[in-house]
Each structure stands twice: as C-alpha cells, then as structure tokens.
C-alpha cells in the first residue's frame, strides 16, 4: 500500500454530502422512540429466530454516538468498524479540504486488493456467525 497524490477530489468532497446524512441518521436513531419501536422489531429475527449480519447495527450506531466503543463492537463488530471508518473518512475530508498538503489517494497492489476482499468477506461471515450465536 502506498499513498500518492490525490487522483480524484470527488471521494473527498462526497464526505460533505454524506456528513449531513450521517447527522440526520443519528438524529433519527436518537428519536426512534417516536416511531413506536415495538412495531419496528426485525421480522427476520422475529419469524425465523436467525439474525442477519447487520443485526444490532442500530444499537451499535447509538453506542458509538455516545462514545461507548466496546459496547458498539459487542452489538455488531461489522457496523461498528464501518461507522468508525466512515467517521475517519469525514475527519480526513475536512482536514484535507482545509489543508491541501494532506490530500492523497491510497493505492493497493493486486495482492493487497485480494487480501482486503478476503478480510471483508471474513468480517461479514464472522459477524454473521457471532450474531447468530448471540441470539441463539
């Protein structure tokens, strides 16, 4: 992996589109009681007893918003990790926009791409097994 000059500013600028969406999602999560939570129970878990890989994602998001990192990972490691990466991306976008010398693009060698793919698949499957066992 190496970091070169920024090839395309769009991914960085998109952070300013997704940041308000993330804020809106966080606000909705904080006020989800307005939406009658008993009616929003996951039908998959309710009818089959099997959790999906994103089970607990809402609670993980809420825990992260309250800076309870270990609780977020206990709820759903996949979503917790993705939200942390999203947060880091937003911080990078703001910093790189203000300070152009921080701008860059990550380049991965083909072998590293394959490794990343295997890790992503492993993370999804691992989280799924964890959630199934947790709700069993």
């Amino acid at each position: 992996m190496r970091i070169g000059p920024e090839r395309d500013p769009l991914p960085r600028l998109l952070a300013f589109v997704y940041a308000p969406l993330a804020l809106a999602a966080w606000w909705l999560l904080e006020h989800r009681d307005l939406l009658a939570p008993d009616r929003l129970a996951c039908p998959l878990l309710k009818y089959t007893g099997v959790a999906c890989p994103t089970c607990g994602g809402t609670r993980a998001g809420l825990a992260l918003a309250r800076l309870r990192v270990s609780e977020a990972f206990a709820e759903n490691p996949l979503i917790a990790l993705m939200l942390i990466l999203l947060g880091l991306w937003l911080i990078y976008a703001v910093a790189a926009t203000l300070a152009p010398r921080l701008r860059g693009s990550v380049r991965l060698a083909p072998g590293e791409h394959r490794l990343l793919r295997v890790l992503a698949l492993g993370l999804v499957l691992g989280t799924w097994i964890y959630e199934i066992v947790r709700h069993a």
Partner: protein
Amino acid sequence: MTDESRDDRADFPPDPDPYRGEGEDRRPPPAPENLPPWEDRANFSLIAGFFNTIPRAMTAPGRFFTDHTVRRGLWGPITFGVLMGFLVSLAEWLWSRATSDFEDTLLQLLGEDYEITPLEDSIVTFIESFGVLVSPLLALVALFVLAGAVHLGVMLMSSGRQRGFEATLRAVAYANAATILAVVPMCGSLIGLVWMLVIAVIGVRQMHGIGTAPALFAVTAPAVLCCCGLSGATFLIAQLAAL
C-alpha cells in the same frame, strides 16, 4: 520519467494500454462520446432527452452504458434521478388515492388487524399530503446512499481498475429509468425495482469494465446486507405464508 512514477511501475503495474507500442502511438482516434439523450443538448431538447433516455436505458442498457462518457459532472445523472423520483412518487400518490378503498378491502381479506397509532396516522397523512413535494429531496438522498453503498462493493471487487464514483452514480441514476413502471398499478413498482437492479448491474459492469459476477455482488450486496432488505423480504414471505 520521474523516480516517483518508476517506483509506481515496479509495485503497481499501470493499466494495460493495448494501443501503445514501442516508440509509437497507435492509439485510434477517440470514440465519439456516448451521451445519454438527457445530457445531449445538441441533439435533444430537455423533454425529448428525458423521454428518450428512459426506453434506451430500459431496453438496451448494455449499449446505453458502453463507452458512456464519464467526468462530465454529476449534474446530469442527479437531475435525471431526482426527476424520476418525483414522477414515480406522483404516480404512486395518484394510484394510492385511486385505490385506497381497494387496499382497505385487501387488508381486511388478509385478516389484517393492525391498528394505526395516532402518531403513525399523522405520519401517513403527512406523507400522503406532502410526500410528493419532498420526494425530490428523498430521491436525492436515496441516490447518494445507494450509489455510495454500491461503490463500496465496486471498490472491493474491481481491484483498483474502477472509473470512480461518478461512473457508479451514473449507473445507479440512469437505472432509475425502470422505476417509471410505477405508473402501472399494484405490481408496477415491484417490477420496476427488479428491472432497476438488472439495469444497475449491467451499468456497473459496463461503466467499470468489471465482470457480471462482481457487478452483481456490488449492486446486490448492500441490499442483502441491509437488515431492512432481508427482514422486509421475510415479512413479505411471512405474509404470503399466512394466506
């Protein structure tokens, strides 16, 4: 050649360029831009461009997205997606108005004893009253959320050869053409959604030059991973099982 680029060549081989030989440029003249009619103001008016884009994207997505011009900005695909979202919302609102009695009868036949709370009733009333007005904003949000999720899959599956977020956004935005099927009552929205996914898969494949399987993964993985997608499908199956 700089030291920087020589290092890159050693660790990260550049994309193959079949047209460039030793010491000569055998690159053919650039192909003409394949612009969607919606963005081709030289040949189509605004309205003609819109109504020509829909059948082209729906019936020949492979040709529509082949050599599709990228780096023309996001304005064209975004406006198309937002306009489609507004029209679909309008059509669905009109149909829900026209068939509300029928839907009540259908719910009774299904044995539905769901009691709506006052809050839910006010939300439904708000959506029925103002849903069409806020639909462009919702379509814009949905477009960016979907395109962002699909692009994550593309980045994972394309081994770094992808053409950037704009290409994904274009595939997703113009795939929205199929949602025009919402003008068909009852099943139109569902058929349109499936058709849209098919167009999006073809669009991602053509735009990024990746295989069908990676494109299928990139488009469907976010939906499959999404709890709502899975639970929604299960809910439908459970409803059907209760018949």
